[in-house]
């Protein structure tokens, strides 16, 4: 069964450093998303991406965050200057036709900011 692949599985970074989280969505999917889950809390929407541009973003997705699809397969989330409160699981997801058709999530990247 096709999977959404995320790397790395765990990233530890110093506060103030930049991190890039990587995702390979399912190949024929058109919509891509990033979500995060702070330990013990809800999964929260960050951003959606379609047709090579951001479609929607939440209040969490401020100027410190950016997304990119640098080639035909990768989808990245960059955090420019990490803060302690950015520590969370970050999940990438993709869908073939948009959110009304369910998502396939990756296994996540655990980001720890120290």
């Amino acid at each position: 069964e096709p999977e959404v692949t995320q790397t790395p599985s765990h990233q530890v970074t110093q506060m103030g450093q930049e991190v890039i989280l990587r995702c390979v969505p399912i190949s024929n999917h058109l919509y891509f998303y990033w979500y995060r889950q702070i330990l013990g809390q809800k999964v929260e929407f960050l951003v959606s991406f379609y047709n090579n541009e951001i479609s929607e973003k939440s209040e969490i997705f401020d100027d410190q965050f950016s997304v990119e699809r640098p080639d035909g397969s990768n989808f990245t989330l960059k955090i420019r200057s990490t803060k302690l409160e950015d520590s969370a699981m970050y999940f990438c997801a993709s869908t073939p036709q948009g959110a009304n058709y369910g998502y396939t999530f990756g296994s996540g990247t655990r980001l720890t900011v120290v």
Partner: protein
Amino acid sequence: GESVGLHLPTLSVQEGDNSIINCAYSNSASDYFIWYKQESGKGPQFIIDIRSNMDKRQGQRVTVLLNKTVKHLSLQIAATQPGDSAVYFCAEKEPGGGADGLTFGKGTHLIIQP
């Protein structure tokens, strides 16, 4: 703002019994709902979805019921197995574009007792 919430944070059932996980949503405009299962260290896994024009939908061993009058969603799992132990989230989506994000509930931890 409006949010999705769960009644019970932890539900413990005997193996082989049926389980029911409940979810209350407060956004009456939501028209699409999904149940996800999340095992430790993994991303959310799609279980079943339902659109607002339906009251019930069945899958393999799972049934989702939607009561729009009281804004309530439930997930029934028949003949629970040890592999059903996980955290279960409901998620909702407002009408709109396919790129809109989902709003997740906090999760119910289902524990299957041998």
